[in-house]
């Protein structure tokens, strides 16, 4: 992979990752059939789904890198991961600000309902299991996003890899969050699809760890060794 290829790919990832947000904005102004009868729900769903998709893509990088030996793939991982964090944050903000209306009492004055949006938010996080789980997943993503820089990678060294294994927990919690929202236990088609993808991605890691006997060399950014060549030196 040439440097030029990496740059072009990164531009493409930026464009593709921002496309769902761009579409939402255009729909918000009435283009592309608009946001539909329930615009808040539409934004919530698009951001949540895009976040999960990007998280899954982030988790694809390491298994693909290992099986193909194209180590520079790892340079896309942070970008995808940060875009996943970006959309999942938007997902949460849409719920808190637009759906619950966290700031609406400041704008519209006190609500007629018995509880304020702020109380509702806390109650939801504490009492609604799918929100508890989703909120936890997002909170766990924050340290990963903060420490995603090269500087932190260097400083934390081996611990960086350990810390970033939290992404597996985040992915599982995110999927549980998704699964618990379906209305009928039989309507599991989409979350089941994601569960299978996640099982494959985590399975690939498990297999790698089992094959490479301890002490396992973690797949951190700097520790990637170039693929061994069997060619003899020419001189």
């Amino acid at each position, binding site marked *: 992979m040439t440097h030029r290829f990496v740059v072009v790919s990164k531009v493409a990832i930026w464009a593709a990752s921002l496309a769902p947000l761009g579409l939402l904005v255009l729909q918000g102004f009435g283009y592309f059939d608009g946001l*539909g009868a329930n615009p808040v729900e539409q934004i919530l769903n698009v951001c949540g789904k895009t976040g999960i998709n990007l998280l899954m893509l982030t988790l694809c990088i390491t298994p693909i890198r290992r099986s193909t030996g194209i180590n520079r793939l790892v340079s896309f991982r942070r970008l995808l991961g940060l875009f996943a964090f970006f959309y999942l944050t938007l997902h949460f903000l849409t719920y808190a600000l637009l759906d619950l*209306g966290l700031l609406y009492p400041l704008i519209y004055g006190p*609500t007629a309902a018995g509880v304020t949006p702020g109380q509702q938010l806390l109650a939801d996080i504490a009492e609604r299991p799918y929100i508890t789980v989703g909120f936890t997943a997002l909170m766990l993503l924050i340290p990963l996003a903060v420490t995603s820089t090269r500087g932190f990678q260097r400083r934390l060294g081996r611990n960086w890899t350990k810390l970033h294994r939290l992404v597996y927990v985040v992915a599982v919690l995110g999927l549980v969050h998704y699964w618990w929202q379906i209305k009928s*236990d039989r309507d599991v088609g989409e979350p089941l699809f994601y569960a299978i993808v996640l099982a494959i991605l985590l399975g690939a890691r498990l297999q790698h760890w089992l094959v490479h006997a301890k002490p396992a060399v973690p797949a951190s950014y700097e520790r990637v060794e170039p693929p061994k060549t069997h060619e003899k030196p020419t001189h």
Partner: protein
Amino acid sequence: MRKRYDTGIKPSEITPESAFVNRRALLTTAVAAGLLPSIMACEAATLPASGDLFANVKKWPGSTTEKANTFEEISSYNNFYEFGTGKSDPAANAHTLKPQPWSVQVSGAAAKTGTFTLEDILKPHDLEERIYRLRCVEAWSMVIPWVGFPLADLLKRFEPTSQAKYVQFLTLADRGQMPGIRYSVLEWPYREGLTIEEAMHPLAFVAVGVYGRVMPNQNGAPIRTVIPWKYGFKSCKSIVRIHFTDTQPATSWNMAAPQEYGFYSNVHPNVDHPRWSQATERRLGGGLFAPRIPTQMFNGYADQVASLYTGLDLVKNY
């Protein structure tokens, strides 16, 4: 303005509510049978789309004065799992439903049972427009101008016996017309039920249209119930069977998740869904920055219906 024909009568005046449907098919049949000269059929077939408007729809005085949702909103955001589980799936897929010809089977504890054509069902009833709030169990709501007639008026015609303690309604379940039937997300056919007292309540309604027009397929054409003080799923769309029984009938959502959806499913702001609060709702049509509004007991119809539930624990009987 282009004149299509010159009878001097507005189409809305000559289209009886029972004949709005399948005019062309009926006429074709009539022509084929030699009952009508073909020239007449041709003329009638050029009737403008306003033929899809019902004639003589009275305004019901009890309608809410809240701003009604647009026809676009009402017909583009639907839960009708027979056409897919997404909100826009019914609008995209329901064109395959054939609301004509249609018949409804009436069975169980009633004197007059059997199969009735849609025309038989509709014939004696005057149509009225009722603007009701509709509260979905998913915590969103709309305001919808339905066209139809009281459910009690229909049910009484079948002369239910003293054994008729409950009424069950069944939706069509036809794989050919309904792509969602392939997926067993619910127990097909979709079934819903009411106590006979609920079904006979003057607010319980049979709808055949919205906004003065023939019901869009995705809203449950050609005939559906509307029970405004209950969550939306208690209404049964595209009804093919009405069954009177002395035992509480099984209902599809209760079968799918009994801990979440009970038989009664009255709108109740203080009885939360296990996974979300029912205290507030999002009234659709308010745009992106509209705050949620408080949900009202029995969806605001408490004065009329609360007496149906005297002595019943509505927390246990959710």
